[in-house]
């Protein structure tokens, strides 16, 4: 009998596991995939290491900062700041056809850019900041509400509204078109007020630290152990049945599988509403270059581009991918420690919005062909905003909503989960709880904090 069974060995599940095991619970983490990490996993292909989800760790604060999610999670998990080896970004850009806004870690550069490129909006931006700082992320009643409404009340230039929404929606909005104001505030703080960073060795360093800690505390981790169903007796979860037929008993169950996906596993529910699942999924086109990107004139960490004055955040309506907007990231363009040297390869990663339904029904040979086709289109779209690097590409890889679904098990390969969040982590069963994406936190730091806070709230106190 386990004290807590955790479904999913992503960031949130591992963090929850560490908390519970640290306080002497008997904990087992079950992972369907053959490796850990979920959306933030990694893989090796053609002799090279790749990250799945990671462009940047958001919520970066420097060593010694005592406030903010990063400081909080380090304390809660008893890690040192150095354990995550985070190197800050060089600098990032929001690129629209006629205007570019540069920003770095902390608000200073963004404020200066807005003052110079949108001088009439300078005061309005300060008013917006006040609203964002006043937002209490522990008060769940304020989470909903239209961000577009709040922004248009404050900022009178629609172009600036679109430019501010673009990176924040890209990095954490499960809802199409608009964004919950609470989610906007959380994303604004994590990206514009805190910032971007990356460990030299990518996400595997963070995962390795989490797993090592979890195991050293006596936690059990079972890979290739998909949960076939959650057993329910007398209105309570009593354990899980694995795909292999093996049964495990647990006093509590913590699931990072997603809201719809978790409910569907419960044997007392005959039909979970798939309409609730998220729709926003992506492709990622990865190019390996023969030299570091800065040697061909690309020195930004991340570029969020959009090719018109209005930004459309929606599932593509008539094609596999939407070429109007995307995110370009180079893992080379971080301020790594000199002792680390350079990454072995120059890398440029480009994300586009994709239609999971269309990708999922392609026959195998067509799937391969479409990947090649959309890789070319994606790069062609992106080089409208950054130097054309196509002559320097020595290897490529591309992943699609199908890949994301395989790593996360989320319906539709929905990267940020379902639009309706379950902030308190509760479900229809009194001892089954949600952590991770659908509990409301996104990003690497966010999902770790989610695991911690749900473990604290529901699994530790009795």
């Amino acid at each position, binding site marked *: 009998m386990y004290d807590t069974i955790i479904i999913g060995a992503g960031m949130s599940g591992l963090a929850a596991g560490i908390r519970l095991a640290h*306080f*002497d619970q008997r904990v087992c983490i079950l992972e369907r995939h053959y490796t850990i990490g979920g959306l933030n996993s990694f893989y090796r292909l053609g002799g090279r290491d790749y990250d799945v989800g990671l462009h940047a760790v958001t919520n970066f604060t420097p060593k010694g900062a*005592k*406030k903010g999610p990063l*400081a909080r999670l380090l*304390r*809660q998990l008893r890690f040192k*700041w150095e354990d995550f080896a985070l190197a800050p970004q060089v600098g990032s850009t929001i690129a629209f056809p006629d205007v570019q806004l540069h920003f770095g870690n902390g608000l200073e550069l963004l404020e200066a850019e807005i003052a110079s490129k949108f001088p009439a909006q300078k005061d309005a931006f300060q008013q917006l900041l006040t609203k964002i700082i006043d937002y209490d992320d522990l008060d769940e009643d304020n989470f909903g509400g239209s961000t577009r409404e709040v922004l248009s009340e404050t900022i009178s230039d629609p172009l600036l509204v679109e430019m501010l929404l673009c990176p924040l929606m890209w990095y954490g909005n499960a809802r199409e078109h608009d964004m919950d104001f609470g989610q906007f505030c959380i994303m604004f703080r994590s990206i514009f007020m805190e910032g971007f960073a990356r460990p030299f060795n990518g996400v595997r360093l963070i995962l390795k630290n989490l797993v090592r800690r979890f195991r050293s505390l006596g936690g059990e981790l079972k890979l290739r152990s998909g949960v076939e169903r959650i057993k329910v007796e007398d209105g309570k979860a009593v354990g899980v049945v694995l795909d292999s037929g093996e049964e495990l008993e647990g006093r509590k169950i913590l699931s990072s599988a997603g809201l719809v996906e978790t409910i569907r596993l419960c044997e007392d529910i005959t039909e979970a509403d798939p309409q609730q699942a998220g729709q926003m999924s992506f492709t990622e086109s990865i190019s390996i270059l023969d030299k570091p990107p800065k040697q061909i004139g690309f020195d930004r960490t991340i570029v969020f581009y959009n090719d018109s004055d209005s930004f459309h955040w929606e599932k593509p309506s008539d094609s596999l991918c939407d070429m109007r907007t995307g995110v370009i990231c180079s893992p080379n363009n971080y301020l790594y420690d000199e002792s680390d040297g350079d990454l072995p390869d120059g890398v440029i990663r480009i994300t586009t919005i994709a239609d999971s339904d269309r990708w999922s029904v392609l026959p195998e040979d067509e799937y391969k062909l479409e990947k090649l086709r959309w890789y070319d289109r994606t790069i062609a779209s992106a080089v409208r905003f950054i130097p054309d690097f196509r002559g320097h590409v020595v290897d490529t890889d591309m992943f699609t909503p199908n890949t994301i679904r395989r790593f996360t098990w989320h319906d539709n390969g929905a990267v940020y989960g379902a639009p309706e969040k379950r902030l308190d982590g509760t479900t229809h069963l009194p001892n089954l709880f949600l952590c991770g994406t659908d509990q409301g936190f996104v990003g690497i730091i966010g999902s770790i904090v989610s695991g911690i806070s749900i473990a604290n709230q529901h699994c530790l106190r009795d």
Partner: protein
Amino acid sequence: MTPADIRDEILDILEDIAPDEDLGELKDEVAFREQLELDSMDFLDIVMELRKRHRVQVPEEDYGELASMHSTVTYLTPLMKDLQKA
């Protein structure tokens, strides 16, 4: 454990929870919250560490007793006086 032992033990827990804080300057009569950057998650940790290390249960309605070092030691003295110092 004497009140002095309990104070040492609380310092040890705080060091664990907030390794970057300078605890040498801690004033016993002033609330932790005013001197250290502790949030509600950290307060839960003090309670949890007491339970883990000494099997001392602090019920939720008593969390307020842990506001400062002085009030914490006062509150814990009767609960921990029969425990052996580790």
